[in-house]
């Protein structure tokens, strides 16, 4: 278990380093970073002054060293647009994104897992058909379209929910629904198919041959095995959601990280883009690490490195 965890941790750290490398060179692949960051109308003197100020005239390794030493303490420089520290601006967006992603995941899991279980245990039943229909819809409706339709109906016509912003608790409902719907569909399908698969396994026949009560068999022998793939999918999906969904946050004017990405790219605010990219990668890596641990707790085969 310890070795498993350490190797995963090592992998994550390596990956993080790779991300930093990418983020650093992202601004420099096209050549002069100064020309990317400053407006086209700036005079050559102004560009040169800017270059000198940002340290772009130093050798590349010196620059990378400076970037790294800043990055490890979360310092990505100041936002060009807002003049305030980039990382701090990212952190300000975290609560909104966590709220949105958390609500979306909760909705997806609370609806998706029971629907999938019911479907898997009673395939062909009315509830199963309902679940599968919802799953198909959830996975195939484009989210920006759904977002607009929801705004049209529930915000404009009925006035039940606000159409934008994050001013009241109701604000989160519509964006979270749109964000969580595809994940719900995925959870329904995965849960259902895994339940069906596990129920057909030989060891379930063995459990029946012991005369165990059906409830014991479902909970102890089926559900724990179903949890294994479910945990990994939920982990991955939550990572995506925490990365901030650019469309949804933009449409609903949700002040999260996705919106920040959209704005910072639009303003060509590179320190900000770098800070967001790094932070999102960090979150996803941490989440993957957490998923791996959860995985190992459920599945002894992984715990003991088999």
């Amino acid at each position, binding site marked *: 278990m310890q070795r498993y965890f350490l190797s995963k941790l090592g992998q994550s750290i390596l990956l993080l380093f790779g991300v930093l490398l990418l983020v650093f060179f992202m601004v420099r692949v096209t050549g002069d970073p100064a020309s990317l960051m400053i407006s086209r109308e700036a005079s050559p003197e102004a560009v040169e002054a800017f270059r000198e100020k940002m340290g772009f005239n130093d050798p590349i390794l010196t620059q990378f060293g400076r970037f790294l030493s800043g990055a490890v303490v979360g310092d990505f420089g100041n936002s060009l647009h807002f003049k305030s520290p980039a990382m701090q601006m990212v952190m300000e967006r975290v609560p909104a994104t966590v709220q949105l992603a958390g609500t979306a995941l909760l909705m997806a899991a609370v609806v998706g897992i029971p629907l999938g279980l019911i479907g898997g245990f009673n395939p062909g039943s009315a509830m199963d058909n309902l679940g599968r229909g919802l799953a198909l819809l959830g996975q195939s409706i484009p989210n920006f379209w759904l977002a607009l339709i929801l705004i049209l109906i529930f915000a404009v016509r009925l006035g039940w929910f606000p159409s934008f912003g994050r001013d009241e608790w109701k604000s989160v409902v519509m964006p979270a629904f749109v964000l969580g719907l595809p994940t719900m569909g995925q959870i329904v399908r995965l849960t259902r198919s895994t339940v069906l698969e596990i129920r057909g396994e*030989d*060891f379930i026949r063995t459990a029946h041959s*012991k*005369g165990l009560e059906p409830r014991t068999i479902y909970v102890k*022998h089926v559900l724990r095995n179903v949890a294994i793939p479910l945990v990994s999918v939920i982990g991955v999906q939550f990572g995506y959601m925490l990365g901030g969904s650019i469309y949804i946050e933009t449409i609903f004017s949700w002040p999260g990280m996705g919106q920040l990405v959209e704005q910072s790219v639009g303003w060509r605010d590179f320190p900000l883009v770098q800070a967001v990219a790094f932070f999102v990668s960090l979150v996803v890596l941490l989440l993957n690490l957490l998923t791996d641990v959860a995985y190992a707790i459920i599945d002894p085969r992984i715990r003991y490195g088999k």
Partner: protein
Amino acid sequence: MSPEELRDVRGGQIGFVFQDPMSSLNPILTIGEQISETLTRHLDMSKEQAKERTLKLLAQVGIPDPKLRYKNYPFEFSGGMRQRVMIAIAIACTPEIVIADEPTTALDVTVQAQIVDLFRRLREMLGVAVIWITHDLGVVAGVAERVLVMYGGRPAEIALVDDLYERPQHPYTLGLLGALPSLESTESKRLVSIRGTPPDLLIPLKNCPFAWRCDYAFDRCWEEIPPLIAVGVRHQAACFYDMEKGGPRDG
């Protein structure tokens, strides 16, 4: 029988051992847990009592170091060891009958012999009757007292094991024995196979299920289904043809 009663019988009075030990155990529960859950289900034991008994069972089926193995998972066991665990589960509640469905088919030959041995020993020790379902007539000679040969979903012949091998009274049994390779035969002899394929059981039978493939078939075989007929001491065969006489059976 209601489902509840059936559940009491399963695992309680009848134990099961299945063909493939690699897939018959739950991969994410410990061996100990998988044995003791049968005990707590049927024998009204506490967790500690069940654990105690599980350790004894593990020793009984020949798993070394039960204390350590109790906490192991199936993937840490070899095929033969897993089959021993399955046997421990089957005999956990000292059932009257153990049904073993091809329990050695998926195992190495050397391991097969060990498992057959274990079954024999447990049968003596616990006085449990074993119903051994198999295609392997070699194993049958080694474990069985009485043999029931099935064909097309019906009993073809029932006999004590020696009697069956010495004087098979059903053409199908004869064919099976002819298909056995023998180490003693010196000249290279082709193994005999039974021509044709088994009948489609979805079509209701009106005649002997073996008639299509039988060398001895005659008119009557196509008109009736042969019942089991006494052909010797504790020996019955479902066939109209009398092997010893070399013609149709009387009556």
